[in-house]
Each structure stands twice: as structure tokens, then as C-alpha cells.
């Protein structure tokens, strides 16, 4: 296992990183978990329940026993189970608050049965449902974390409302799960592969990356993106792909993750590719030295789940190798002596 020194964040892997691997013939949950362990990509193990667990959210006792057996045999430590509130389950309406609570509660119970100490929900799980979940979380000993994923930032009103709630309730059972997609420094190069397949010209991809990197709120850049993409002859489907780059990759300063503490229950080490640079392993699109500094300064000792997501754009890279590189990089950064305070 990639064990970090005591008192530091612990590393791990989410099986979401292996989305393409999961589809290969002969693969099943047991083989993916075993390979994560064999490649020392623990100690933490996270998975997306609806992705990895057939029959979720209604696992019978045999299924629970089987999944627990797979995890136990691997020697990995369950860190977090990603669950979903499918508010838009039915066409033309959203679930009522009672339906939404039940939809999540059954999954929190399922996570507890599987031995996970935390669950991840999305921002659609607002203050009202979170408040209702608190007694259940306490009773089961399962923390409930709202993922802060691009395009969310600390300033987004739903995030601010949750922060106010967590501060007021002052409980360890509810909190945030920072996802590094919200604080990127560049659009990942892996998108080039997907754009080539989608027939988007390299010039248009470059233009979108440039606009993304300019200062200012991302929302304000959509009109210019749409105008210039239309001038360049982009089809509506291609424009949809370009818009997605603005939605999936946020530009919040990584130092601002400090403002989510002490209400952080888990961390998603989202990344899109580690490269071997002149100074060793580095991530061109995420400033990990800055992130590691925040986690260390805040005294965070929970898990950072490596979440490789370039599989959404390209199948050129091995997710296993990428996580290995990220773990090696993170271990070095986390264990480095704290930088001498310059101020």
C-alpha cells in the first residue's frame, strides 16, 4: 500500500478510475478490487455504488456478504461509497422531499451494511435533506459528504448554504468532499483525443482552452465561446462538447479549499494525467503542491481517493499506471517538510 506517514492524509483509489477497465471481458468487481490491492493502490477503497454493485440500492444479504468478502480479501480499507440522489428519476417532475430522503436513506443504510464509513452525495442533496439525514448518519456511524465538483465553487449559493448549515450544526457526521475538478489550472490534454474523434478542429480546441484560462468567471465566457465557435463552423453537438469543458473543469484557486475546513469528511483526488517532467512527476492541469499544502496545514488525516477521469476523453493511458504515478507524486508532496512560511 502507498502508506503515508502518520498524521498525514491517507491515499486510496476509487474504482470510478477504472471505468473503461470495468468493461473489458472477464472483469468483475472482485478482479478490479484485487488488482487495486496487488498494485499497492490503497489503502483506501472507494467505489460508485450504482457503477460497481449490481442490484444497488437493494442488495440482499448474500450480495452484501459477497461484497464484504471481496473487500476483506483485498486487505483494502473501505473509505467512501459514492451514492446518488436521482432527483430527476421520473420525467417531468422531481422527487418530493420525502421521496428524496428515502432514496438516499436506503443507500446510507446499504453503505453501513457494507462497512463504509462515509458516503458521497451530490449538491442536489440540499440543506433540508442533509439535516434530515443527520440522525441516521449518527446512528449508523456513516459520514455524509456533499461533493464539491466543477462547476461549483466556494461562492456558489448552494455551497454557501451548506457551509452555513454545517457551521451551525457543528457535527462531524455531515460535511464536504472537495473534488479537484473544481480547482484546475488548465484543461487537460486528454480532451484532444475526444475532440479529434468528435471532428472538432485543433484550432477550436485551442481556442476553448485559451478562453477557459483567461481570468474572470467561467459563466461569463459562454457567449464568447458560442460566438467564436459558431464563426469557426462548429455544429451544435460540437458546441455541446466545448461547453462541457467549461462545466467539467473549474478554476477556483486551490488555496480556497482551506475555507471548507473543518467540515471536510473525504477528498476526491480527481486528476486527468500525471507526466514525468524535468522536476519529476507533475500534473499539468492540477496544482497538487498547493492542494497538498492545504491538506497538511488543515491537519487532514482522512482519505484522498485517486480519481482518474481522463477515461472520459481517451483510452490511450493505463488508469492503473496513472494512479501509481499520482500516488508516488502525492506521497512525496505530502511527506515533504512544510514550506517555510514566507510571511
Amino acid at each position, binding site marked *: 500500500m502507498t502508506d503515508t506517514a502518520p498524521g498525514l492524509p491517507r491515499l486510496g483509489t476509487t474504482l470510478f478510475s477504472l471505468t473503461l477497465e470495468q468493461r473489458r471481458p472477464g472483469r468483475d468487481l472482485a478482479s478490479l478490487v484485487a488488482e487495486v490491492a496487488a498494485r499497492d493502490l490503497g489503502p483506501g477503497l472507494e467505489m460508485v455504488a450504482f457503477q460497481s454493485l449490481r442490484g444497488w440500492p437493494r442488495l440482499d444479504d448474500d450480495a452484501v456478504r459477497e461484497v464484504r468478502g471481496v473487500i476483506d480479501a483485498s486487505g483494502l480499507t473501505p473509505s467512501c461509497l459514492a451514492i446518488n440522489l436521482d432527483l430527476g428519476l*421520473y*420525467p417531468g417532475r*422531481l422527487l418530493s422531499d420525502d421521496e428524496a430522503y428515502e432514496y438516499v436513506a436506503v443507500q446510507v443504510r446499504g453503505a453501513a451494511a457494507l462497512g463504509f464509513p462515509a458516503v458521497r452525495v451530490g449538491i442536489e442533496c440540499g440543506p433540508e435533506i442533509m439535516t434530515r439525514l443527520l440522525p441516521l448518519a449518527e446512528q449508523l456511524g456513516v459520514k455524509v459528504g456533499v461533493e464539491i465538483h466543477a462547476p461549483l465553487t466556494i461562492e456558489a449559493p448552494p455551497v454557501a448554504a451548506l457551509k452555513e448549515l454545517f457551521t451551525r450544526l457543528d457535527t462531524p457526521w455531515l460535511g464536504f468532499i472537495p473534488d479537484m475538478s473544481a480547482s484546475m489550472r488548465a484543461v487537460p490534454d486528454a480532451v484532444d483525443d475526444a475532440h479529434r474523434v468528435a471532428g472538432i478542429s485543433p484550432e477550436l480546441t485551442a481556442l476553448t482552452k485559451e478562453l477557459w484560462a483567461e481570468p474572470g468567471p467561467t459563466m461569463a465566457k459562454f457567449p464568447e465561446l458560442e460566438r467564436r465557435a459558431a464563426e469557426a463552423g462548429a455544429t451544435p453537438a460540437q458546441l455541446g462538447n466545448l461547453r462541457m469543458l467549461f462545466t467539467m473543469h473549474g478554476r477556483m484557486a486551490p488555496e480556497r479549499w482551506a475555507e471548507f475546513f473543518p467540515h471536510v469528511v473525504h477528498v476526491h483526488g480527481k486528476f486527468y494525467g500525471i507526466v514525468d517532467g524535468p522536476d519529476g512527476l507533475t500534473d499539468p492541469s492540477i496544482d497538487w503542491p498547493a492542494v497538498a499544502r492545504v491538506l497538511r496545514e488543515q491537519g487532514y488525516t482522512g482519505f484522498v481517493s485517486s480519481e482518474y477521469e481522463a477515461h472520459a476523453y481517451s483510452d490511450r493511458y493505463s488508469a492503473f499506471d496513472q494512479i501509481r504515478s499520482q500516488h508516488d507524486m502525492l506521497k512525496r508532496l505530502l511527506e515533504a517538510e512544510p514550506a517555510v512560511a514566507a510571511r
Partner: protein
Amino acid sequence: MGPLDDQVVRADSLTATADGLDIAVYSHWYRALPLPSLARVDLTVDGRRIDPAELSVTVNGTRHPFSGLAEAGDEYWFTTDPLVLHVPVETAPGREHRVQLLLGLSIPYILTGPDRVPLVAPSATDKTLTAAGART
């Protein structure tokens, strides 16, 4: 957009049956989705647009009329399972068909815009494939 798009309809997806063409379809989304998420199935076979009302769909071993999926919110299409579209077109083992499919999956936890409407994630396929014979 992405590597899973090419796997929505695979080389061995077509099967000729007694009542038409079966097309095995795989999800381009990473997680299991409830059946109402199958929001849009724009299917054209050999140039003929197939009205969704003519389709039935087998998932988890149960055959549903396409219109019935919207109410099957407690059933999920698992990540690695195909669902089968039963298409009323004439075919036979060994016959080639051009399959054009725009599959739009409604993503029930990603709500967009002021009206909080689920994102529809599209995947487009255009392949000419050979139908296998039905296994008996």
C-alpha cells in the same frame, strides 16, 4: 463524447429473430441508470426511421414496451449489461443492416438550468453490421 461511445452498438450487437432484429445496446454512462433515463432512442435501420412506439426493450430479463420504461423507476440498467431493442424490421442471419442510433440518456442527478431539468447525455452511432442467427 468519449471512448464508451464506440461500444454502444458493438460488432456482435445484431441478432435476427423470428419477429425482427434485436439490437444489443450498451450504456455510454459510467453508472447504472433507472429505466426512465432511457429518454431518447432515435433509431434508423437501413434508412427507415423506427417510431419508438414500435419498439420493445428487454432489460434484466423483462420485456417492456418502450413507453412503459418511463414508469419503471425502481429498475436499473446495470453498467456492464446490454439492453436489447426489439425492432420490427425484416431480417435473416447473415444480413447486413445500417444502424443509426442517437441514444439520449437522462442523467437524473445532474440537474441543469433554472427549471432543474436533468442533463441529457447523447451518444451517436452509425454502423453497418451483420446480424447473427438467434441462439436456440
